[in-house]
């Protein structure tokens, strides 16, 4: 069952350092494209990995890219060997990325984020300019499609701001 807010709430409750990126960030800006996973850029420092383990550990996390979907090793030291984590959980899919194409690693992504308030849940979201840049940098057809729609939204917002 889709539960984006619940996943973000979990991350907040466990003080995970993350920035919402990808398709779900696009949704917040007004994109009409449906995405199946919650993409976040997160710090892969051991302290933050331990928080991620705490946040997701009881949600039956499994590695999505492995055909056998093995359970996520709940050892933060082991997870430090990963650059990205692509997970399925009981609340849905979540991708934890240590860096974002066209933007950089977590500190840069965090610097270019804005705060979004979602029903009292405050989370960082990659700003629209960098979100478009990231989509173009990845360059798959679906990313270019998403970037094209976000570009319309950006220009519209810019037009509203200058009126």
């Amino acid at each position, binding site marked *: 069952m*889709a539960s984006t807010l619940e996943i973000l709430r979990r991350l907040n409750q466990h003080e995970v350092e993350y920035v919402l990126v990808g398709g779900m960030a696009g949704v917040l800006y007004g994109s*009409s494209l449906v*995405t*199946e996973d919650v993409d976040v850029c997160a710090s892969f420092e051991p302290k933050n990995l331990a928080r991620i383990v705490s946040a997701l550990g009881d949600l039956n996390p499994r590695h999505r890219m492995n055909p056998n979907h093995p359970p996520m090793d709940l050892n933060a030291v082991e997870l430090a060997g990963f650059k990205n984590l692509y997970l399925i959980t009981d609340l849905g899919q979540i991708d934890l990325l240590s860096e974002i194409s066209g933007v950089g690693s977590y500190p840069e992504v965090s610097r270019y984020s804005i705060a979004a308030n979602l029903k009292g849940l405050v989370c960082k979201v990659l700003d629209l300019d960098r979100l478009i840049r990231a989509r173009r940098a990845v360059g798959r057809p679906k990313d270019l499609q998403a970037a094209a729609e976000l570009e319309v939204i950006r220009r519209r917002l810019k037009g509203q701001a200058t009126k």
Partner: protein
Amino acid sequence: MVMKAGGWESSDASYEQARQAALDFGIDLSITDYLLTLTPEQRLERHDQALELVTALRQAGMDYYGFDPRNPPQTEPARS
């Protein structure tokens, strides 16, 4: 750019180019127009409802075919 009943109008050529590029990608900008009238949390709620529908339809497809139609099983070519 001005908002008019039924949508937006713009004299900005680059905005029109951006719209055309999105249309060329198959984006239905009438939906985007609508979503921009909502708050971010309303957009998220609407998205998650749409995703639930997609998931249910996908499951129905798998139940019907017996496999995921996005990844149909490979069949051996007939031997002559």
